[in-house]
């Protein structure tokens, strides 16, 4: 029997294919196409303290093998989220990873306190790739001090066993260095990677296409960046579990991230092109692992790092 189970921190999952935060709505929209229990986990859209309108439109631009988005974390805020979305997901029997985002270190602390006693959540993904209003809008995950402060705030306030997965941006000089900081600050696992900062200029209007000017690049275009980031971080800290993401569209791609060091894989942009992408990827990955002779997913994690000469 092939063993598809995986874990991140103390949390276990029946299989390693998750949705990516912000790419699966509230879960309801996708549940029309497949059962959410089929997923390793649903990762919810990053939720903030207060309701948020998000950025003005246009919010997206297609790019070669990818897309740019600047949603700006639109959402109902933590209270409505806990009241409406979580109970529904729990009723579905879905394995839930909640993603949170803050504008200040205090935001992260409050969000963690609001979540500490919520039942039915497997882990917390802490999106620190968002602008810090207390520091000229600089992204938390871009600097070791702010990355550390945000994760420490969550660690101190979350209590108990809920694993913290810190989600990092690749837009830094050394992602391994930031990874080491957040692990030191209390992260149990890492989510790699968030989108890559990019811009598209509309050559008709001759202005940035997105109302927010810059946006996050996702999709297959960035997969080599994700693989590199996961490989580097797994090399630096092989003991820390990684939730990989970035441009995965096939089982082969998910396998690539797993070989680099990911213990689970989130699917974002691929779902926009194909609502059943996650199910296809899950089946292809399983078939691929078996074809390569693995008895379990866990054996394949980081397998590309084995010493030269070995099979």
């Amino acid at each position: 029997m092939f063993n598809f189970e995986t874990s991140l921190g103390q949390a276990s999952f029946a299989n390693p294919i998750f949705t990516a935060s912000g790419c699966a709505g509230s879960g309801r929209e996708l549940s029309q196409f497949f059962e959410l229990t089929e997923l390793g986990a649903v990762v919810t859209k990053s939720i903030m303290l207060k309701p948020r309108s998000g950025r003005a439109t246009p919010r997206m631009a297609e790019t070669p093998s990818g897309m740019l988005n600047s949603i700006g974390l639109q959402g109902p805020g933590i209270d409505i989220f806990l009241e409406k979305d979580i109970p529904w997901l729990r009723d579905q029997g879905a394995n839930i990873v909640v993603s949170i985002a803050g504008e200040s270190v205090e935001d992260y602390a409050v969000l963690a306190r609001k979540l500490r006693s919520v039942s039915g959540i497997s882990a917390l993904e802490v999106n620190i790739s968002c602008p810090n209003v207390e520091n000229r809008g600089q992204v938390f995950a871009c600097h070791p001090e702010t990355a550390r402060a945000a994760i420490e705030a969550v660690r101190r306030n979350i209590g108990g066993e809920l694993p913290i997965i810190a989600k990092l941006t690749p837009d830094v000089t050394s992602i391994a260095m930031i990874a080491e900081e957040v692990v030191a600050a209390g992260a149990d696992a890492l989510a790699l990677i968030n989108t890559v900062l990019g811009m598209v200029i509309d050559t008709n209007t001759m202005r940035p296409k997105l109302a927010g000017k810059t946006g996050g690049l996702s999709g297959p275009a960035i997969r080599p960046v994700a693989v590199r980031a996961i490989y580097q971080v797994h090399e630096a800290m092989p003991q820390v579990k990684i939730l990989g993401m970035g441009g995965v569209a096939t089982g082969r791609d998910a396998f690539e991230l797993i070989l680099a060091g990911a213990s689970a894989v989130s699917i974002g942009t691929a779902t926009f092109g194909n609502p059943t992408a996650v199910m296809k990827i899950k089946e292809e990955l399983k078939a691929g692992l078996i074809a390569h002779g693995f008895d379990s997913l866990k054996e394949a994690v980081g397998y590309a790092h084995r010493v030269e000469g070995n099979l």
Partner: protein
Amino acid sequence: MMGINKNAVQVMAEIVSNKKVGAYNHIVFSVGDIANHAKPGNFVAIAVGGANSAMVLRRAFAIYRTFDKGNSGGLLEIVVAPHGAGSTWLTNQAPGFKVDLIAPLGTAFGIPTQPVRALLVGGGYGSAPLFGLSEVLKNRGCRVDMVLGASTAMKIYAPLDGKRSVNSLTIVTEDGTTGLTGKVTDVLGDIIETNEIDIIYSCGPMGMLEAINQISSNFGVVHQCAIEESMACGIGVCMTCVLPIKGEDGVVRMLRSCIDGPVVDGDTVIWNSKRTIPDGTWGAH
């Protein structure tokens, strides 16, 4: 807030026919059961570019009409303007080719329970969904007037059987190559008054919809319009397609045009809000 159209399904749909009509391509797909569930105003989302495509997102097209062919399965038709790479690719696919298609998506035009006097206004390929709507309205005993506008004759989509389904058809082009010279909005006031219009249904470019809404407001006529926002997923999971819409509670929210639209009540839309979040929008700061 609504959820995704509960009838939406994903199929590999074979192209049955693909013909150039003026500036557009009229494309017919074999879609099986979907044909029975599509309503005027709904749209389809199609994956473009083939197996090795650099285009990762679906393209949205209004459903022109559907047929249930019984045993031979249902047909679904769309009218495509070759715009950029994706729509151009679609217009180049030959019959027999299969595309990955999701339908029906989005909201539909609301159909009055009483026979009313309806005015249907279409801009460019925006006329497509109006013919199916017109048939439904006629079957409900409504009087249907139609106004179609475009920059030039080639961009008026008005097939013969479509024309026959309305009580009156007025065509307006900016360059006067067919019909009256001008914009659709030039003729609306007269028709509303003369024909005592109760409701306007519209589909076309945002600027046109906004101008129509101005007129419908002035005349106190209900206005349902099918809006067209840039969409990445079409099924409500990406939040790219939003626009500010005032709810029944008076609060403006950024709603998804793919599941709370494309058909919306014109009076609830905060028009001309591209590149800004209107003041007071829920969660704005």
